[in-house]
């Protein structure tokens, strides 16, 4: 799909014997004007894949950090068109870094799924995570995305039992996002043992790369998860930095992302040899 930047990036990380670093920021937080510098900082810090949140007035699956980011972005006037413009400009500057759009159905489908999928394709977006469209309602968005060559990325959670997992995997592509806690973004941290168990279960059921997110806040935890999963997602911790530093956040974001990436690199014998 679209030259498939996602599989290429996961394969490259695998070749380096480390997990992919997936970083989340809300598009247009704190403003659309500040956004390109923040996205560039993610790449400069070593992010492999960027998740770009589409701000929504009612982000029901998000904790306070990302909810505030949504309100900051919308408060500064971010519109859907701005988000696609940001993505398209990012694609020009970073031809190989995969972009995944994450958000809620109402903003994605406001002009219809075909319009949305077409905009994604044109802007060079590689995958879409729609938080409130479960497999049962795939028809709302899945067919349009697939027809445009954009991966519909699915979520698996601690409540996704064995009986349900096949339904989640049916039609999933790009990667599988394991939500490590039953809850909202950025709150609790899951026990490492339960994450390990879940990742093993998921990897036994699919060939898709498995990324783990929700509640991953720092380098140590990222490293621990990186030893078992194909990707580690960090969101709220980065969004908090943007919340604290506003339009001056870019260098702080870059430095923090670099510590995450360093922690994942340190899992790999290749990087340890280089360091020695």
């Amino acid at each position: 799909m679209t030259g498939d930047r996602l599989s290429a990036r996961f394969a490259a990380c695998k070749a380096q014997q480390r997990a992919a670093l997936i970083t989340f920021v809300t598009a247009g937080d704190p403003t659309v004007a500040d956004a390109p510098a923040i996205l560039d900082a993610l790449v400069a810090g070593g992010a492999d894949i960027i998740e770009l949140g589409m701000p929504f007035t009612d982000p029901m699956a998000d904790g306070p950090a990302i909810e505030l980011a949504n309100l900051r972005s919308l408060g500064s006037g971010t519109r859907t068109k701005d988000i696609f413009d940001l993505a398209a400009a990012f694609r020009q500057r970073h031809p190989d870094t995969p972009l995944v759009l994450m958000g809620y159905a109402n903003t994605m489908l406001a002009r219809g799924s075909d319009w949305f999928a077409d905009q994604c394709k044109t802007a060079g977006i590689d995958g879409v995570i729609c938080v409130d469209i479960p497999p049962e309602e795939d028809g709302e968005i899945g067919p349009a995305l697939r027809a445009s060559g954009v991966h519909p990325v699915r979520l698996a959670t601690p409540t996704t039992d064995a009986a349900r997992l096949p339904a989640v995997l049916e039609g999933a592509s790009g990667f599988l996002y394991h939500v490590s806690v039953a809850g909202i973004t950025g709150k609790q941290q899951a026990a490492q043992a339960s994450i390990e168990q879940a990742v093993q279960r998921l990897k036994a059921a699919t060939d898709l790369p498995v990324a783990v997110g929700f509640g991953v806040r720092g380098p140590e935890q990222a490293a621990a998860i990186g030893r078992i999963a194909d990707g580690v997602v960090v969101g709220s911790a980065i969004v908090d930095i943007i919340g604290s530093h506003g339009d001056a956040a870019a260098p702080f974001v870059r430095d923090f992302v670099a510590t995450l990436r360093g922690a994942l690199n340190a899992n790999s014998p290749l990087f340890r040899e280089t360091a020695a």
Partner: protein
Amino acid sequence: MTDTLAHTGTLPNSLRSQPDAAGHFGTFGGRYVAETLMPLILELEKVYKAAKADPAFEEEYDHLLKHYVGRPNPLYYAGRLTEALRADAQPGKGAKIYLKREELNHTGAHKINNCIGQALLARRMGKKKVIAETGAGQHGVATATVAALFGMECKIFMGAKDVERQKPNVFRMKLLGAEVVPVTSGSQTLKDSMNDALRHWVSNVHDTFYIIGTAAGPHPYPELVRDFQSIIGKEIRTQIMEAEGRLPDMLIAPVGGGSNAIGMFHPFLDDMDVAMVGVEAAGEGLHGRHAASLAGGKSGILHGNRTYLLQDEDGQITEAHSISAGLDYPGIGPEHSWLHEIGRVQYKPITDDEALASFQKLSALEGIIPALESAHAVAAAEQIAPTLDADKVIVVNLSGRGDKDIFTVADALGVEM
């Protein structure tokens, strides 16, 4: 009349057979929730199906409605209101107005019908904790009430602004043993309390049951809330036959999420001679701030269902406004969206000012202080009744009593208390 349709062989076309297996009413409804909640929603659907087929469940529900809630409540002929409207109407005009007295239920509104049903389901699922969202506090009070009755732990999510505006109900909920959680996000009103209730639920799915207060949310909520509220329409059928020997010509009910309205309408949907009017809150008027999702919104996805929503062209939810906190919500139950699209029910906007006038008129003429929500339906009846012949019969759903609203009304009228 119901049987007429059945005997013409058009049973599959019954308007009472929605939703489909996936919870859709036409293109509306469905299950738009985070994956974490899906297994629970599917389990709830299973449990509800089993409960519906279990005579013991129905028996206990009926028993509580009779002995605890005080059902059946009266269908009252509002003679003085009817005559007052006839006095200003053309000769021969002025339909008879009956009031369905839901405000006489325990806790003062229709909300308790649904809360009893859902608490019974929670118990069947082995959940010992219940949560709910509330706007004005009526659903919060009803939920706290059944939680006390069933010995369940109860948390009520309420917008911080509403906590401030509705202090008596906040204290009532606390007396009943509930914890009231003020919600400080967003507009700090009903929709935000629903967001936070969902956030709490997704983090506590293993032991918590969410008692949704209106006929909205992910399937099977719109269906089961409607079924629990259908007692309203079923009683009206029996009572109007006793009073008039025939079905009514028109039903009128206020619509926020629309649970009292769908409960009133549903038993009559296949009776094509019974017209139905749902009354939306037009706030300051449709060109100003309002809460009329059908008149001023379009189809979208929020809080687990596809339905009409107040939103901008990007799909951002716009804030609703109504003088009635119970109607102050930017969406509507999905079955109403469907009934609107197929034209079976007419939806009529009524402004804050019109509702305020009817609030006072019904109090003075009939000695019944209606909830501001219900006053919207009374206002619609006042506009429609004089246009109909005097032998026509209208039933208005007096969904709640107005004690809770006296401070709001006094404030709007510039009266110092």
